């Protein structure tokens, strides 16, 4: 926005001035707020949606299925208002208030793209899958080695202490495995595998010298973390947990930030743009619109963290135009909005197992098993058909037959006992950073607040498609070798976005000409603006990304405050 449009009186400016502004209260924004507040900065966190108070606003999650009008099913109205959101596994009768109304929050699919969003305090940290896997140098060196994207300006050694720092606070359960491609972390005790998973893990180890199957590393707390948890094994995480059994901004980082008395939280605040001061060559604040009153207001701070989610942050940057940055804030490189990635998934195999009829399980474990990447991890595992790799997530269970032939007592009888054990694994694959996978703002089509909408133009290409074949075949091969019967494969080929790991549109890099952020998540061109949500990612790896966002955020906050104290910002 043009800076000369500002007409602020001194008093208002003073009242609206903080040491730091954090835009967005999701998984990375919560961390930014916590770190900045704990370092003594008066911090304003802006959230475009409504407030969600931990526990109090997790409505209906303690209800039994029969107490819900539709026994947790979704309705035609849900499908009408939320045609995109309602297709996500986490969308149910109770959790649906954590997803946006698609009709009120439009975007434009140049190619199919599922944009899954939660506009409220806590964002998608309430809804996330909770899987936490460190990256390794296999990932940080990938771009440099094969020439896709730009070289990451950091290596594992740079982020390792920050994984160490965030993990104990997050509260991640997991097993230590000593794998070079999936470094161990600071874990709570691991969850247990069930008997079929134990069997399959043992058979995989016997049959394949290059791979293992481990219990998932999940931000479900197997022990108390401060006053949070432990997990009660209800497996209703996406509804919000009244026990604080998993990590979210609402349960963990925002209360910690609040405790410092340095945090101000302003919900209903749609950030229209970052206000840039051309003379001082720095951002001086942000302009918001109150989503309820539609009034605009300016807030000022010495440093600004953008954590509005990958596409939210991108939208803010592209809307922040000024004489100095006609193409969007800090976008002289022209990279903002480009290199959009997700993970490609929805492919794998499943089968049933004859045996363990005398075994069952207790509790609903909100976690599965993980098979870390084993392709292209060294010379021996190098593939000629595609670059990079994938991991598997899955699990075994002993379901109840839900339907059978006939009616009456004999039908009922057949449906009361558990059936055979079965197991499935699905794969998450790396998506290369392609410049042409991009998001741009559309000023012709505006939303109900008058803000430009996004045109999303993203696809999976040949490398991903070649990888998927292996993802499917290798899944079936492992399950068959493990002794499962009736092994079937599937490939749903969901559109990009559906994995909800969108990232990469304001990437880190060494060169300001080809990247937006430096190795400290600081904008090359606007030194007091930091971006630590998914948009900062230079590549996608194949691991679930949230814990990496958290580590990068804590690291960037530490750097920012040190710079501030040195007088550099």
């Amino acid at each position, binding site marked *: 926005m043009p800076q000369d449009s500002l007409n602020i009186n001194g008093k208002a400016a003073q009242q609206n001035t903080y040491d730091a502004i954090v835009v967005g209260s999701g998984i990375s924004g919560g961390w930014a707020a916590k770190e900045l507040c704990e370092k003594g900065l008066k911090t304003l966190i802006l959230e475009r949606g409504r407030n969600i108070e931990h526990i109090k606003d997790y409505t209906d999650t*303690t209800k*039994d*299925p*029969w107490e819900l*009008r*539709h*026994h*947790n*099913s*979704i*309705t*035609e*109205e849900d499908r009408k208002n939320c045609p995109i959101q309602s297709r996500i596994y986490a969308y149910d009768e109770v959790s649906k208030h954590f997803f946006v109304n698609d009709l009120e929050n439009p975007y434009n699919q140049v190619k199919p793209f599922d944009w899954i969003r939660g506009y409220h305090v806590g964002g998608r940290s309430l809804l996330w899958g909770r899987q936490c896997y460190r990256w390794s140098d296999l990932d940080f060196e990938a771009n440099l080695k094969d020439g896709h994207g730009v070289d990451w300006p950091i290596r594992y050694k740079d982020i390792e202490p920050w994984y160490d720092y965030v993990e104990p606070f997050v509260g991640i359960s997991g097993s230590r495995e000593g794998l070079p491609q999936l470094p161990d972390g600071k874990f709570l005790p691991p*969850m*247990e*595998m*069930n*008997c079929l*998973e*134990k069997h399959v893990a043992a058979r995989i180890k016997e049959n394949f010298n290059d791979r293992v199957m481990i219990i998932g590393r999940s931000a479900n707390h197997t022990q108390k973390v401060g006053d949070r948890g432990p997990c*009660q*094994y*209800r*497996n209703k995480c996406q509804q919000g947990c009244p026990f604080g059994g998993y990590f979210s901004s609402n349960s963990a980082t925002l209360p910690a930030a609040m405790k410092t008395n340095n945090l101000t939280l302003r919900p209903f605040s749609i950030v229209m743009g970052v206000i840039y001061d051309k003379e001082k060559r720095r951002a001086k604040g942000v302009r918001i619109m109150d989503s309820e009153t539609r009034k605009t207001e300016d807030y000022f701070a010495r440093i600004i963290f953008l954590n509005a989610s990958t596409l939210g942050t991108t939208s803010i940057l592209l809307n922040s135009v000024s004489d100095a940055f006609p193409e969007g804030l800090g976008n002289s490189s022209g990279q903002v909005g480009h290199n959009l990635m997700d993970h490609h998934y929805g492919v794998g195999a499943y089968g049933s197992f004859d045996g363990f*009829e*005398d*075994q*069952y*399980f*207790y*509790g*609903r*474990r909100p976690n599965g098993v993980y098979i870390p990447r084993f392709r292209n991890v060294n010379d021996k595992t190098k593939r000629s058909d595609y670059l990079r790799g994938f991991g598997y997530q899955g699990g075994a269970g002993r379901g*109840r037959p*839900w*339907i059978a*032939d*006939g*009616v*009456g*007592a004999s*039908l*009922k*009888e057949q*449906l*009361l*006992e*558990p059936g055979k054990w079965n197991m499935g694994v699905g794969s998450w694959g790396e998506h290369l950073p392609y410049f042409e996978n991009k998001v741009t703002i559309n000023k012709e089509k505006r939303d109900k607040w008058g803000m430009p909408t996004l045109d999303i133009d993203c696809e999976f290409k040949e490398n991903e498609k070649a990888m998927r074949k292996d993802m499917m075949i290798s899944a079936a091969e492992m399950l068959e070798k493990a002794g499962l019967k009736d092994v079937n494969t599937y490939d749903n080929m969901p559109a990009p976005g559906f994995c909800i790991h969108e990232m990469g549109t304001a990437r880190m890099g060494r060169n300001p000409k080809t990247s937006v952020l430096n190795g400290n998540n600081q904008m090359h061109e606007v030194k007091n603006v930091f971006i630590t949500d998914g948009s900062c990612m230079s590549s996608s790896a194949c691991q679930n990304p949230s814990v990496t966002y958290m580590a990068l955020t804590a690291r960037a906050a530490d750097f920012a405050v040190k710079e501030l104290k040195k007088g550099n910002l």
Partner: protein
Amino acid sequence: MNRREALSTVALLLGGTIVGANVFLEGCTPGDKKAAAAGGPLTFSNDDIAYLDEIAETIIPTTDTPGAKAAKVGEFMTVMVKDCYDEKDQKIFVDGMQQLNDASRKKFGKSFMDADSKQRTELLTEIDKESKDAMAKAKPEDPKPYFRLMKELTLLGYFTSEVGATKALRYVAVPGRYEGCIPYKKGDKAWAT
């Protein structure tokens, strides 16, 4: 049975009280249902619910544990059809209520509500087989037969009901812990969720 006979059956069954505008419109016995086909918001009368309860109870009867009627599955079906079905399936379901009753009349000379429980089981066993055969021949995009819809809603409604989940199956709202391998012996009930 002609329309006049149908109307007299209504009067008989309801003790002279007519419930629900759709009864006036179509002269339906409980279960005879054409409102959806006529457009307008879909409504179900108490008699419809009673009829669906009996269908559900025939599918999942009371044994050593309560059946679908005790779980109020009839009412659950109406809520689900109204709120969770698209118009196409709503019509299939509602027309199916009529078809099922017609089939009862054809087979036994009386409505489903007038049939005894043995006759109901016999009829629904037949219709279940027909719908299974129809599904075997159908293309994936074809709609499900009406009885399949009724059966699925009955099973869903029953096993997620309080009696279904806690009496027919096992249910623990807050397990508190996870154990991956515990002993199981034949006859032990499955977890409801």
